[in-house]
């Protein structure tokens, strides 16, 4: 298979970025919008073509999906260690290409309407292109270091985009937080990479992931604190992934990241940034599975499950619709992690891996749809808060319908996309660990509940009176909604297991009817509850909230995690570490140096005083000196 044209997929957004970035001031906004959209359209078309080529024409040889790669040395470390730049084509990277390009294209189209009239219109498109480019580079990476490079670029693009409204203090803080938190996670990631590089002598995925390869066979090369070095490396790499994918406890940046423009939220939450962590674990899945018998996967499972539950609980109480969606993202990402954690490797055991990827795929579609729909609503009412909304179904029919579809999809109602992927995850969890399965089912119910809570809150509920009557958004915004709604309804029918599996051999996955029925029923219960609580304006919800008391307060404050982190950062690191160090430097280190200087000057002043100019003083010194010398001589001679 000829894969050289695939290099164009990331290259086009890069060119667009450079073009728009450098000629920022000289390009008319209308032109820059088109440049961005058409650039990405080209990428998207190529991605689809590549997927077609790979999955249906030349990728599958004797039932095994081949891995193609092309790379060139970018930098040498040692004789064996080097960073390559290149592209790696295998099922998950091709799938990710589609996810990224389609969602990004939709976001681009949508942004043309949403960002109209903004000062930094061109800049916005430049950043979007940079973001897309970084994500393409990340999914196509051939080795750990390349993925790290693009990983960082993804981080910085998110920084730029979250802080897009740079005059808003909250946006600056959010951007900084997102970057620093993910950077902290990257610290772990980087050390993980260093360990892997040192013990295996390579960064290359093909070598690392080969079950018969040296990396996996010799994993137990050196041990540290009871675990092998590679296990530690994988834990640290997972830390990196957890940071980007907003897993507990590194999730705090995600809700704040809502400060960015809504299309950016859609992009971050659906297709780019957050799925990078999932993708990273999936990319290294063979290593995770074989090294130390999948020890690290247990961690992945529990972190994922806990994050899913934790986020779902918080989501129920949030009043900012974007924050609800943010926590729902975190919850769904927890799902994906969980699925990866419970997965096996061969044949049908790999259902978890497949389900995770499947969920990533479907989630990208409906989450993008949810965010863009929310954006459309926010665009109309100029507020993020549920209290300012209600009864909007009359004003915004298209948004209403598409949002409903997305909500149904995420709630796991058949036949929408979310149902299929969530079902596979639950199947995988059921086979592996019953506890995890129950958590999954419970989270599914919660998901349905909070999604419909905001759905009813926005489009039904009380009839708000609006200063400006909300209108349906323009075509440039509704068109992506319609496309994504269509995708959310249909992508669930793709037989994913035939294309994606850990060992790259397709398998048959069947719908497990009892489990599917349970999940569906739980979802429907959630929806029904939401219907009761929020369909009509009533005080039921408030009563329940009071009933939960303390717990409700904790939840709506996100269990005070922000505060804890702020405390650690501000009170401990800034106050207790940084400030003392800065003071210490000025006072003691610098003080010592200045002190040496001052002592010299002081001594010289003293000595200068000795040289008083009074002959008597000199005479005294002379005589006393002569006497002393004489005494010394006599003492030593006799």
């Amino acid at each position, binding site marked *: 298979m000829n894969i050289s044209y695939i290099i164009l997929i990331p290259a086009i957004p890069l060119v667009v970025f450079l073009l728009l970035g450098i000629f920022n001031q000289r390009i008319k906004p209308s032109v820059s919008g088109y440049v961005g959209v058409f650039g990405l359209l080209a990428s998207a078309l190529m991605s689809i073509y590549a997927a077609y080529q790979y999955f249906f024409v030349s990728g599958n040889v004797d039932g095994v999906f081949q891995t193609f790669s092309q790379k060139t040395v970018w930098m040498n470390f040692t004789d064996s260690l080097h960073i390559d730049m290149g592209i790696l084509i295998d099922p998950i990277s091709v799938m990710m290409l589609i996810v990224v390009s389609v969602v990004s294209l939709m976001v681009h189209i949508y942004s043309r309407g949403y960002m109209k009239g903004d000062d930094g219109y061109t800049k916005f498109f430049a950043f979007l292109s940079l973001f897309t480019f970084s994500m393409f580079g990340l999914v196509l990476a051939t080795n750990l270091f390349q993925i790290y490079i693009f990983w960082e670029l993804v981080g910085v693009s998110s920084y730029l985009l979250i802080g897009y409204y740079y005059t808003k203090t909250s946006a600056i803080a959010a951007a900084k937080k997102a970057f620093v938190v993910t950077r902290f996670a990257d610290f772990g990631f980087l050390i993980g990479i260093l360990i892997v590089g040192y013990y295996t002598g390579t960064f290359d995925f093909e070598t690392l992931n080969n079950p018969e390869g040296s990396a996996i066979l010799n994993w137990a090369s050196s041990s540290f604190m009871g675990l092998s070095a590679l296990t530690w490396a994988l834990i640290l790499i997972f830390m990196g992934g957890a940071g980007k994918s907003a897993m507990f406890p590194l999730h705090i940046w995600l809700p704040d990241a809502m400060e960015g423009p809504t299309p950016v939220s859609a992009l971050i939450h659906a297709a780019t940034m957050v799925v990078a962590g999932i993708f990273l674990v999936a990319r290294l899945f063979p290593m995770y599975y074989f090294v130390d018998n999948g020890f690290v996967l247990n961690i992945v499972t529990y972190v994922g499950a806990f994050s899913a539950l934790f986020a779902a609980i918080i989501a129920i109480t949030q009043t900012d619709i974007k924050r609800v969606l943010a926590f729902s993202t975190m919850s769904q990402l927890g799902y994906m992690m969980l699925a990866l954690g419970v997965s096996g490797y061969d044949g049908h055991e790999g259902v978890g891996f497949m389900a995770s990827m499947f969920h990533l795929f479907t989630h990208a579609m409906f989450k993008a749809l949810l965010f863009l729909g929310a954006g459309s609503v926010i665009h109309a009412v100029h507020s993020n808060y549920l209290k300012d909304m209600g009864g909007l179904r009359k004003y915004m029919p298209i948004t209403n319908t598409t949002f409903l579809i997305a909500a149904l999809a995420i709630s796991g109602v058949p036949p929408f996309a979310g149902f299929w992927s969530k079902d596979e995850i639950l199947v995988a969890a059921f086979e592996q660990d019953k506890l995890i399965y129950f958590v999954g089912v419970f989270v599914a119910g919660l998901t349905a509940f909070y999604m419909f809570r905001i759905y009813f809150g926005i489009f039904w509920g009380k009839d708000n009176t609006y200063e400006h009557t909300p209108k349906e958004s323009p075509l440039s915004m509704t068109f992506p909604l319609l496309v994504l709604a269509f995708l959310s309804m249909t992508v669930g029918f793709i037989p994913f297991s035939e294309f994606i599996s850990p060992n790259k051999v397709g398998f048959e996955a069947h719908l497990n009817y009892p489990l599917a029925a349970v999940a569906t029923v739980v979802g429907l219960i959630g929806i029904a509850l939401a219907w009761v609580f929020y369909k009509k304006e009533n005080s039921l919800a408030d009563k329940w909230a009071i009933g939960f008391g303390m717990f409700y307060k904790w939840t709506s404050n996100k269990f005070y995690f922000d505060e804890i982190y702020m405390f650690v950062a501000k009170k401990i690191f800034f106050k207790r570490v940084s400030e003392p160090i800065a003071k210490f430097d000025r006072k003691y280190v610098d003080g010592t140096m200045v002190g040496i200087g001052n002592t010299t000057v002081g001594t010289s002043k003293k000595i200068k005083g000795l040289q*008083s*100019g*009074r002959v008597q003083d000199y005479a005294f010194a002379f005589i006393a000196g002569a006497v002393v010398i004489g005494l010394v001589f006599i003492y030593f001679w006799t």
Partner: protein
Amino acid sequence: MIEGISIYDVLTLTTILFFIGVYGFLTRKNLISILISVEMILNASVVNFVIINKYLYPDILQGVIFSIFIIAVAAAETALAVAIIINLYRQISSVEVKDTEVMKY
């Protein structure tokens, strides 16, 4: 030779005299007083010259002659010193050491 007096006794005397002069030289704050102390030191040394000449080398006269020279030089020196002191007094109306520190440093 002094009957019953050894050279040690005389030298002890001159040593004490010398150091009294030194003490005066170091502690007095007035130029004339310092001059007095210097005279005392000179005298102590003159006595030494003479005594050593007399006790150890009675047949030559070097010590005596040097003493004469010393006395002459002392006289000249005193004359000059007094001249300087008077001049200084005319300039700054003081002969205290502390007032003559302009040349310090």
